[in-house]
């Protein structure tokens, strides 16, 4: 027993001597500057959140719910995580058009928001949600480990959830200029049985949340790198 321990110790010392010259993994927090240089004193108005379904598709109830849920989610993120001063929503500020693209060509609309609400910036978006409820078989190629030949096999594929396509813009209210434009696509997987449940549609969408916050405030990304110790 003692002999084995000694052997192990000797091997460990030898290995240790070799390894000490190697590299080791370290964790780094990489800092990212925000897309917009805000100082936190600005007044921000959220809206309008428009529904723009894909070409050839009509507005459905899921779109209406998604637009409302997204506005709630956006307000929460901007207030809680970005700590911005949000101006309460005003019902009298209705957009003259239902297309974000057309609104962006109309600086007067954004100026009117500033006039009515004293906003410095306006965060607006257009949203399209698609309910994915697909299940079926697809043919997949694979190489057999036994004989190395290529075969085809059928694989069951299930894809259920909400697919989001969001265009978010930040407009300078004084001029109507678009300061930032962010196209975000994300997918919220949902159990088939819960596809009818439209509550908390944007909960746990980390990609979306991360990118939204990154527009307004600095953030850090944790990464791993190999570093030589000597």
């Amino acid at each position, binding site marked *: 027993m003692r*002999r084995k321990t*000694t*052997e192990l*110790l*000797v*091997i460990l*010392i*030898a290995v240790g*001597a*070799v390894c000490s010259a190697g*590299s*080791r993994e*370290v964790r*780094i*927090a*990489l*800092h*990212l500057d925000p897309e917009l240089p805000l100082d936190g004193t600005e007044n921000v108005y959220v809206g309008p959140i428009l529904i*723009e379904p894909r*070409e050839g598709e009509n507005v459905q109830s899921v779109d209406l719910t998604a637009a409302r849920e997204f506005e709630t989610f956006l307000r929460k993120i901007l207030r809680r995580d970005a700590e911005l001063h949000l101006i309460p929503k005003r019902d009298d500020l209705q957009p003259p058009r239902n*297309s*974000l*693209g*057309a609104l*962006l060509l109309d600086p007067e609309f954004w100026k009117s928001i500033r006039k009515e609400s004293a906003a410095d910036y306006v965060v607006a978006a*257009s949203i399209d949600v698609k309910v994915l409820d697909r299940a079926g078989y697809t043919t997949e190629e694979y190489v057999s480990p036994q004989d190395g030949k290529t075969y085809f096999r059928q694989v069951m594929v299930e894809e259920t959830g909400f697919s989001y396509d969001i*265009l978010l813009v930040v407009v300078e209210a004084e001029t109507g200029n*678009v300061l930032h*434009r962010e*196209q975000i696509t994300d997918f919220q997987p949902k159990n088939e049985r819960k596809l009818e449940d439209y509550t908390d549609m944007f909960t746990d969408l980390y990609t979306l949340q991360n990118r939204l916050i*990154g527009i307004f405030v600095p953030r850090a*990304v944790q*990464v*791993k*790198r*190999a*570093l*030589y*110790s*000597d």
Partner: protein
Amino acid sequence: MKPLRKKKQLIEVGATLVLAAIFSASAAFAGNPDAKEASAEMKWGFKAARQGYWQEALMRFEHANQLTPNQPRILNNVAVAQEANGLYEMALLTYQEGLSLDPNNNSLRRNYMRYQEFYASYIAPPEITDEEGGEDAQENN
């Protein structure tokens, strides 16, 4: 009697290995005091990095690089420290410099791949240009 001899032999082999490593390192530094100082700087830099003092780490690694230039190991550490200090463009050049010297350095290659992934995702994501975005928006009208 036999196990005892074997044990002694093993200890001797191990001790020889360790001593050889120490002597070879000492011999390498003996004719080159800069290499010795660079090694010490690398150690200090590594310690600083482990504690999160990345500015100091960068300074140490850069000093090591000045003392013994063109060392892929040192350039790897410089690049990582540059990343940690937010000097992303400089890190890219340093990684490329290191890889041009030693394209087979695994740590350097892995770090460079990870860096590229990070850079593409966060610093310069494949963006929709204003013109393209504008056209898209107009097409949707």
